[in-house]
């Protein structure tokens, strides 16, 4: 029969809306409002998975995000999500889930033999067992461990859904919408404060829905619904349901995940799967509730052993009976509620077993009235059964050695007390403190603008929660600057006082050894903690790492305090002396997609295109990414054209005729003011005080540590007006560098500057015929006398205003035309037209790079953040009689001593063999495998069309004085060794006559 464990009535489910779902291929029915876990329990399905290490059968222990066991693979195909907790999955029609970590099937799992070999898998087993030899790791151990101890498997297809990021400010953030949180939100909102209230469930109410409470004369569930309605009607309140606050960061910044579409088969059109919120509240009220601890006894991981509060939640929230013969085992007063709720739901409660000798009299009377047996001074020593609980053995907690008492049952509801959820408080930088009266950690001194209330503060009585919420909401609003009046109180029916006597671990029947699980997700047992402590890992942080306790996806929500208490017992010290672990975000696992948000695929990074991009695209240019820029790399003329064909053709065209390249991506900075010359003089190593108007100069900048930072030309456009260019890569860092010195070190200099990189299009026209081409369109005298090398002038190019620079990167007679970017494409087309008869062509960055290597110009691969001006052969430019950045530190002994890597030219002496970038330069006596004796490396290679052979630039120890020497260039990765000759880095036109022609 379907749903035979469903109660006849009750629960916050909609019985008119049945839903169908499958688990491990079998179809079941549930109702709207169910979770996957509640629907499975309604159908009597308890066995959900196999444990991580020992492959023991595991079921459902909890009713919320603290669940360590009930993990499933949700959905299939691209939307498959492994390791999702069945307790937090809202049921939808057609849901498909599968158990994980079992092979070949859940009921018969081969790897369960791990259970028999468990002595091998004790604490620290990774470190001890799999130490040697190293090669075994990749070949043997890792394979076995992945198979044996795997969790679910991830989807292999791309996620078809999108994730979204939102930001919101508010006065008061209320975390959790239980009785305390609801009161706090209404109270704060009533003062006029902007309130956000977040709760991980779809429905607000928290424990009011889980429990059988009455407030203000109506059921807790109805009261909660009324408050939720009230909040929804207030326009200063933003309700974030299905939202978990996962992180409390510095300066009261809060991270939250809203599960927008996890409760439907797939997101509606335009809706994200999840949404990540960054919240900026002035005050935070933490009403995050508390998490129950399980009792620790032998085989406490059997399916059928659950938390006492979870049992109540399944009855009250979902109308589900998790068993038919129940034992309630506790060390505190709270679990008595479970016996009463079970009884009312028609489940036979065999006994309440209270480890305390003297249970509270009013509670005992309540049980008596229902004829439920109360066994005091005993607890469960061990649970027994195969794939489900069959009976328990009760043992005395008073040190008596009487025979254990066997009781048959299929459900244990256990409680070892409550842990206030201090996670967010701890994440905010505060330190929780131990409270002996409730045997738990409670919030300590606040470090940020937060306060914990209700169960999150250790107040487990309903009336206290309601009252604290009312007061805390008002206080938070007042602290945010609001004035108003307190809302009226709410009064609770529940009057049981909370009491507890700690019991951290049960004696075992006949002192036999049993597996007593602390952390069920990572299969950490009490004996592992004892062992770790004996082996010296007896501080909390070490214990965690050695045993992996608390390091699974549940972050030890049900196990941390139990582990700490057992460690404290082992050390013979009180719990506060042993300490507590620091909680770190995230509180629940957060899907990676949330952190990426929309920055995936083509939106990963902006793309910068120059004004000439469209033309390049039409030409079929092949592009290369340079930072965020797309630059034309080469221009194939036919489908057969290779990269090599193109750059050789383009280089030859430049060196023999005239060609054009788009250089718009260079950084450009406009600098103005009376002190610019002095400013430049301090930024660059060379002289700038006497640069005439209408002239450009090449300059080198160092960092403060003496290493070369960037190079480029700066031109004096007018009396107080200069124009700087930087390398493409350093455009932004150079600007920030200039701003730093101007605003912190040299505020006395009267200069202003800003980036104009995108305002100007730069076109280099290079080659022996470049002057002839420009004379067709430029209205100024370009003769060598009127416009020599490094000249600058304003001009008209046809009808376009242009700036003309006579500078050269190719080593040929060359000019650079700058026009306003809006005219960039027009200028490019007009230059092409002006050179059409002489056969002008475009060239890309590959030819540009080839020509720079032929000319020995240093670029990014030589300016590697380690080389000095001396290393690069540029020290001659420095004027050491003035001040400049890096002047002193560039003279540190290590930077000017012997053995520095200096830039050199490199030629292969083995005909037909190409050099390889990154190859090490070594003595010919050094073996190929041993590059530890590397004397340097190759930084850039090309085939030089001008020389007809492969050439390279490199960095070599004392290279400047080793021209003519032969050495080996080796690449062990490619099993390659080539004989090379070291030479001057300038391969062609060493005197620079061409550029001055």
């Amino acid at each position: 029969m379907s749903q035979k464990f469903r109660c006849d009535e009750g629960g916050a489910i909609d019985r008119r809306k049945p839903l169908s779902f499958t688990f491990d291929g079998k179809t079941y029915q549930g109702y709207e409002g169910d979770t996957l876990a509640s629907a499975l329990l309604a159908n009597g399905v308890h066995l959900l998975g196999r444990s991580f290490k020992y492959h023991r059968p595991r079921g459902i222990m909890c009713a919320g995000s603290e669940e360590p066991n009930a993990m499933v693979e949700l959905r299939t195909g691209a939307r498959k999500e492994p390791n999702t907790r069945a307790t937090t999955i809202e049921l939808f029609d057609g849901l498909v889930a599968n158990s994980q970590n079992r092979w070949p099937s859940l009921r018969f799992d081969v790897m369960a033999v791990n259970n028999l070999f468990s002595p091998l898998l004790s604490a620290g087993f990774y470190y001890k067992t799999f130490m040697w030899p190293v090669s075994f790791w990749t070949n043997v151990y890792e394979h076995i461990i992945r198979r044996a101890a795997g969790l679910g498997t991830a989807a292999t297809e791309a996620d078809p859904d999108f994730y979204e990021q939102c930001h919101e400010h508010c006065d008061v953030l209320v975390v959790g919408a239980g009785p305390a949180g609801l009161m706090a939100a209404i109270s704060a909102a009533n003062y006029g404060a902007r309130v956000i209230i977040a709760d991980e469930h779809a429905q607000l109410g928290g424990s009011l829905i889980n429990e059988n409470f009455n407030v203000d004369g109506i059921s807790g569930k109805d009261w909660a619904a009324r408050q939720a309605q009230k909040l929804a009607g207030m326009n200063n309140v933003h309700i974030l349901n299905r939202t978990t606050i996962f992180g409390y960061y510095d300066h009261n910044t809060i991270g939250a995940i809203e599960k927008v579409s996890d409760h439907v088969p797939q997101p509606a059109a335009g809706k994200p799967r999840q949404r990540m919120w960054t919240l900026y509240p002035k005050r935070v009220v933490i009403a995050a509730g508390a998490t129950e601890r399980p009792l620790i006894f032998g085989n406490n991981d059997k399916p059928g052993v659950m938390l006492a509060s979870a049992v109540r939640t399944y009855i009250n929230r979902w109308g589900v009976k998790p068993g038919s013969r129940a034992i309630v085992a506790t060390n505190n007063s709270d679990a008595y509620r479970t016996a009463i709720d079970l009884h009312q739901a028609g489940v036979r409660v065999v006994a309440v077993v209270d480890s305390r000798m003297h249970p509270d009299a009013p509670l005992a009377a309540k049980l008596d009235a229902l004829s439920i047996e109360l066994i005091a001074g005993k607890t469960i020593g061990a649970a027994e059964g195969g794939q489900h609980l069959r009976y328990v053995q009760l043992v005395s907690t008073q040190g008596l050695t009487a025979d254990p008492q066997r009781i048959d049952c299929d459900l244990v509801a256990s409680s070892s007390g409550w842990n206030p959820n201090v996670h967010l408080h701890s994440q905010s930088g505060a330190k929780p403190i131990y409270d002996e009266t409730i045997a738990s950690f409670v919030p300590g001194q606040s470090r940020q603008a937060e306060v914990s209330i209700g169960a999150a503060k250790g107040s487990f009585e309903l009336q206290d929660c309601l009252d604290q919420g009312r007061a805390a909401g008002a206080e938070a609003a007042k602290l945010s600057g609001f004035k108003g009046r307190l809302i009226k109180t709410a009064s609770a029916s529940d009057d049981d006082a909370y009491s507890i006597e700690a019991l951290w671990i049960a004696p075992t029947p006949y002192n036999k050894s049993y597996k007593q699980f602390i952390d069920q997700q990572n299969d950490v047992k009490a004996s592992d903690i004892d062992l770790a402590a004996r082996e010296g890992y007896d501080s909390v942080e070490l214990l965690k790492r050695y045993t992996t306790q608390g390091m699974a996806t549940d972050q030890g929500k049900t196990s941390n305090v139990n582990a700490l208490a057992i460690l404290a017992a082992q050390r013979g010290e009180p719990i506060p002396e042993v300490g507590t672990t620091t909680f770190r975000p995230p509180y629940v696992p957060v899907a990676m997609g949330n952190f990426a948000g929309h920055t995936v695929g083509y939106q990963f990074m902006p793309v910068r295109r120059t004004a000439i991009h469209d033309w390049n695209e039409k030409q079929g240019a092949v592009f290369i990414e340079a930072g965020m820029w797309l630059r034309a790399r080469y221009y194939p003329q036919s489908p057969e054209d290779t990269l090599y064909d193109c750059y050789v053709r383009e280089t030859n065209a430049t060196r023999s005729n005239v060609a054009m390249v788009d250089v718009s991506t260079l950084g450009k900075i406009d600098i103005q003011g009376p002190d610019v010359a002095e400013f430049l003089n301090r930024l660059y190593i060379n002289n700038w005080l006497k640069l005439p108007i209408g002239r450009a100069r090449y300059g080198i900048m160092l960092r403060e540590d003496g290493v070369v930072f960037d190079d480029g030309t700066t031109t004096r456009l007018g009396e107080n007006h200069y124009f700087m260019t930087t390398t493409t890569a350093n455009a932004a860092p150079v600007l920030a560098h200039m701003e730093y010195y101007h605003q912190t070190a040299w505020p006395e200099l009267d200069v202003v500057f800003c980036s104009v990189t995108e305002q100007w299009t730069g076109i280099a026209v290079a080659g022996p015929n470049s002057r002839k081409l420009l004379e067709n369109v430029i209205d100024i005298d370009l003769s060598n006398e009127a416009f020599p090398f490094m000249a600058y002038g304003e001009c008209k190019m046809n009808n376009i205003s242009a700036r003309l620079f006579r500078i050269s990167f190719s080593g040929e007679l060359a000019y650079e035309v700058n026009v306003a970017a809006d005219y960039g494409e027009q200028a490019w087309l007009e230059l092409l037209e002006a050179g059409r008869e002489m056969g002008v062509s475009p060239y890309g960055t590959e030819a540009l790079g080839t020509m720079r290597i032929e000319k020995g110009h240093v670029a990014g691969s030589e300016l590697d953040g380690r080389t000095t001006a001396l290393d690069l052969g540029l020290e001659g430019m420095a004027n050491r009689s003035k001040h400049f950045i890096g002047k002193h530190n560039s003279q540190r002994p290590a930077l000017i001593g012997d053995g520095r890597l200096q830039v050199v030219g490199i030629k292969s002496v083995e005909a037909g063999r190409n050099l390889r970038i990154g190859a090490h330069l070594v003595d010919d006596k050094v073996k190929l495998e041993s590059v530890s004796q590397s004397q340097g490396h190759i930084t850039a290679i090309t085939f030089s069309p001008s020389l007809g052979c492969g050439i390279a630039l490199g960095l070599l120890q004392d290279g400047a004085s080793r021209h003519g020497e032969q050495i080996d260039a080796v690449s062990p990765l490619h099993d390659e060794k080539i004989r090379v000759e070291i030479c001057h880095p300038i391969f062609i036109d060493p005197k620079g006559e061409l550029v001055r022609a």
Partner: protein
Amino acid sequence: MLRIECPWCGVRNEDEFSYGGDASVQRPADGGSLDEWYDYVYTRDNSAGQHTEHWQHLNGCRAWITVVRDTITHEIFDTAPASPNLPPGSGSGKKTNGVKS
């Protein structure tokens, strides 16, 4: 996420800023010894507690500002323009976040 008050733009997220190091270090005069220059670049106190440091409002107004921050708690006590030539801005000297004093 630190919330830093730019004296001109107001309180902004840390990811609009870039860190610029210890602001208490004095840049030596040109004539300084190599030791002084070495210390200026390489020697830092790594203090636990109040620290005066430079940040640039890189993805904002691009001003360099001086921030007094506690390196343990991240509490920010004060922010001000780094340049003495620039007006103090509206927010100078104010506390910039919800940290309790």
